[in-house]
């Protein structure tokens, strides 16, 4: 991994219920074990009910930073939903940001009620590309469903994040956390999901 800013600011974002909090805990633990000072900020409660959710990481070799990331200071965005990548870019993006986006759209309720229209996916991709230094797009939900359940989308994306080499974490570091979190047969499935995502970004 190349030289990194300090603090390194990472976002894990998506829609309530997609499992961003679970992978945040895995990453937080793994980085802490490697001696990094890590603070994660989240909001939950009503925000879970179909709303936009995110975890913001402050990762430093020097000290603990507060959980709130300043505007325009995002370095990495892992997004479980494409519209949410743009939402985080809007507040925290800069010309230096690396994005990893799961392409499975989750329509906001305003789209169902026809108050708004979900943007064309190709236009959304182009915008994310334009606003990122480098951007990865994955069909992580499809990959998770091939492995057995959409619930593992977050783990596929976590694998992709490790494969993209933008965090100071190795596959072994994160595998250890996955094994500790998922008991028994679930562990193997999640390790497969992790590997699936890893291969997508590592081979490119």
């Amino acid at each position: 991994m190349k030289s990194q800013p300090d603090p390194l600011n990472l976002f894990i974002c998506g829609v309530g219920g997609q499992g961003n909090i679970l992978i945040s805990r895995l990453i937080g633990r793994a980085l802490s074990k490697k001696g990094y000072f890590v603070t994660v900020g989240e909001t939950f409660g009503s925000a879970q009910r179909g709303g936009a959710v995110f975890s913001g990481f402050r990762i430093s070799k020097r000290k603990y930073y507060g959980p709130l990331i300043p505007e325009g200071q995002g370095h990495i965005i892992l997004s479980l939903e494409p519209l949410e990548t743009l939402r985080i870019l809007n507040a925290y993006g800069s010309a230096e940001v690396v994005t990893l986006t799961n392409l499975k759209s989750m329509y906001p309720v305003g789209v169902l009620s026809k108050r708004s229209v979900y943007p064309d996916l190709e236009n959304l991709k182009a915008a994310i590309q334009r606003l990122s230094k480098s951007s990865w797009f994955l069909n992580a939900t499809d990959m998770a469903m091939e492995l057995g359940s959409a619930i593992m989308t977050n783990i596929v994306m976590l694998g992709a994040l490790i494969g993209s080499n933008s965090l100071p974490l190795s596959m072994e570091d994160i595998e250890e956390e996955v094994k500790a979190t998922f008991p028994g047969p679930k562990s193997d499935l999640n390790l497969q999901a992790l590997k699936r995502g890893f291969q997508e970004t590592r081979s490119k």
Partner: protein
Amino acid sequence: MRDNKNSKAIHFLLGNEAIARAALEAGVQVASGYPGTPSSEIVQALSQEAKAHHLHVEWSTNEKVATEVAGAAAFAGLRSLAAMKNAGLSVALDFLTHLSYTGLGDGGGGMVVVVCDDPDAHSSGDETDSRWLAKFAAAPLLEPSNIHEISEMMKWAFDLSEEFKCYVMVLSYTRLSHASSAVKVSEVPKAHREAHLDTSQTVSPYVARPHHAALLEKIAQIRPRFEASPFNKYEGPERPELLIVCGGSGSPCSSEAVELLSLQDSVGILKIGTLWPFPEKLVQDYARRTEKILVVEEVDPFIEIHVKESLADANLEAKVIYGKGSGHIPAYGEITTDRACKALAEIFHLDYQSRTVEYQQALSEEVDKLLIDRGLTWCPGCPHRASFWALERAVKADGRDIYVTGDIGCYTLDVFPDGKGQIKLLHAMGSGTGLAAGFGQLGKFNSRHPVIAICGDSTFFHASIPALINAVYNKSNMIQIVLDNGATAMTGFQPHPGTGFNATGEPTNRIDLEELCSSLGCTVAVSDPFNVRRTVKKIREFLKEEESVRVLIMRRTCELLRMRQEKTRPFVVKIQEDKCRGEKCSVCSRDFRCPALVQDLETGKVIIKEDICSGCGVCFDICPFNAISREEVKK
């Protein structure tokens, strides 16, 4: 809080879990609270430790009772904790103001009240600032500015409480309660105190005047401790050009802003952890080293007003004070590094841009074209969606101008832009019922609005019961709908008196809603909101009656809870494309708004999103053209 047992394990905890852990390490034996974001995980984390450490942990019916239960333990010589959100403190205050006058007695117990504020009102109806209420109740108030400070501060709070025989308030806030980090943990004491009560004397705030005088004396004794506390820290040059005085989240935001603007040589930061009684002398000492002061804090100018008072007391008024009074920091919303940067840039005449002009322009172009908001909505399979669907139908069919009052829970989402908009008035916990009881009296003034109050099951036990009794007693003309989903769902599915389980998951007495309401003299009916037709019929019948207070319990388990327990979908739901009228109809997607039912952009026909469909099957009843089929999943 359940981390690996071995000592090398990383304890990556939420702020709230760190608060719970610190209480445990401080020897807490009784903990109580009522769920409310962002405070819920404190009692929840302790409930998971109750068995292993022989604690009594409970979800109390409301915050006032919670503080009374914790107070009882302290009177009996134990250490206790009560946790709540800012709105809950207002409920508890009647007891707490009296408890300040009496103190905790001579039993030797200690009590800490943790209040979690929600600046920005992420999950609240207001962003009221609890610091005033601590002062109002004359409770010593501490506020951590990061997770790593929690452990020591909580333990000190218990020690102070025991030494001065008063409860101590510890303030948390969303950005502390819901932040997480690796936290150092230590041993939980094995020794337990035995509870005993002193029957030889009477404790009471009456006669109040001498009690008040004694309380002021106690606060005067605590003040020098606060002045000297290591939770107040200064970092910066010996004689700073500008002194920042801050507390809580204002502290990390100030440090980072100073770093981003490279002002380390000009700006010093005094972080206050002991908020009240305010450490006046400390602030005066640091104020003497500078001519300019900026106060960085959340919501109200609490520190700022106390800084100004401190300076006036020491005849130091000549200093320039920036903050909320000067307009440099807004007096609403949470404090952010960006807000601190903006204030500093203005004071130091610096140009601070968070990103380049080119990037900002590209961003604006794309965002204007593409970014849409993501409103809150009920989960796929949520009973509330069907309940409000039924209510809307019943109200339309009735034809009169019906007035619906709401309450606090997941069903509050009805008032959001993509809710059903049935609720016309919404306030505090239980207020829907109290207001409806009032509206129900207005017939004699020619009000022609039938009145319906809606509340959830947990809210009903928390604060609706006294209002319902009031309605019965004063013969108000109203209907009460209780949306009984078997949990305090919004805050994380905590049990309540109607569930038959307690905070530690053990079976307990279940308060029967029907029997309770019947015993009050209400006409009571129960319906399943997924039986839409019957539910509409029942509401319409109740609207026609006017003789008594009518209670309709709409009962169906929260879908998230059901899925946790049953782990399977009840139905496989399918769209029969030939029957679906698509854009011409749109009832299931545009009107019912289940997130799992979306219209194909090209054909307009509805598709089921398999990844999120809960298989509840209620859309089978909603579709006017029988285009949705459902097949039971065999268990």
